[in-house]
């Protein structure tokens, strides 16, 4: 059953703008900046934002702080689980250019090489006011339809895939999944023995 939704686009955009559910995947030090945002000082729920543990029903993905290759794998998997349209908000300078971990072997330098970032907030760490400013910006972008990271990810998937594979190596998903299996199996055997 096909319905022409373009008539309702303004309403839908308003709804998308005013009910951004955050996937609670707070990496790095910015996770500490979330509680003040959520609690009574700067109450984000005023804008209908709500922390949400499951990515399937989340819209806004907060990358709060530095990203290591380990985390980036999970971030990519979680990001791909989110249904379109989905938005990414990067906190602080680490996702931009590595920040103070510029020479660290285990900190991603340019996050937007691996997943599209809609809004990035500078600062180390940005204060809640700055984060709220970024969220306001994100709302404007959503309303004007400029927050099209999910479209870019679909269109330039080869580019992102290439960067991810250069960083992690081909077939990194299976490799990461199987990494622990021998040790888990051993553990299981020990458990059976006892």
């Amino acid at each position, binding site marked *: 059953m096909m319905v022409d939704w373009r008539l309702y686009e303004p309403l839908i955009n308003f709804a998308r703008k005013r009910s951004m559910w955050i996937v609670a995947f707070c990496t790095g030090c910015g996770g500490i900046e979330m509680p003040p945002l959520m609690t009574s000082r700067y109450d984000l729920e005023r804008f209908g934002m709500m922390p949400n543990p499951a990515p399937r029903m989340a819209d806004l993905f907060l990358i709060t702080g530095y990203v290591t290759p380990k985390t980036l794998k999970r971030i990519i998997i979680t990001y791909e689980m989110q249904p379109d349209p989905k938005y990414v908000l990067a906190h602080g300078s680490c996702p931009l250019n590595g920040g*103070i971990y510029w*020479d660290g*072997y*285990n900190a*991603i*330098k340019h996050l937007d090489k691996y997943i599209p970032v809609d809004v990035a907030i500078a600062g180390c760490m940005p204060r809640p006011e700055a984060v709220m400013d970024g969220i306001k910006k994100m709302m404007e972008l959503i309303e004007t339809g400029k927050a099209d990271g999910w479209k870019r990810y679909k269109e330039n998937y080869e580019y992102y895939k290439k960067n991810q594979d250069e960083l992690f*190596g081909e077939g990194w998903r299976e490799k990461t999944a199987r990494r622990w299996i021998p*040790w888990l199996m051993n553990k299981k055997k020990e458990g059976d023995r006892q």
Partner: protein
Amino acid sequence: MNLEKEQMIVEKILQKAPYAEGTVRRQRRIEFRIPPDRIRDFLMLLKENNFETMMQITAVDWLKDGEIELVYQMWSYTHAVHAFVKTRIPRDVDKARVPTVRDIYPVAETYERDAHEFYKVTFEGNDKLEMPWILEDEDKEAGVCHRKDFDMLGYVKKKYKLLDRFEEDKEDYVI
């Protein structure tokens, strides 16, 4: 500032362990230097002299001496004294071997895995050394470690394609 308690402990331990040399650094800090092959006996001795907890195994890379120094940090709740047990082993990867103390202090398993991953020290008898720890597999294959002779900056540039970003000779960067 009296150090009788520390002195007493050090003497008590030294007379049982003649191979070791011990000093008192300051209040509640004592320090021992022992040959690497006696580490197990010495830690057993410490455990008998109620040093209940192993807090950390630190590895220090002395590039010029060509040695790696392992610092076993023990803590005694009864004396409230923090003991450093220092031992030095050769630096080259195949010779950097020391017996494990996992059976004496079970927690040592974790610290030994840590030291093995970042300083390539082999603890003989610990079968979990190869278990995945902090480093990703691709980093491990590239030989990433915290030894001083490893060119970390070069590796980072290569890994993250940052060749155009830093000058080679500059020492201090300001971002």
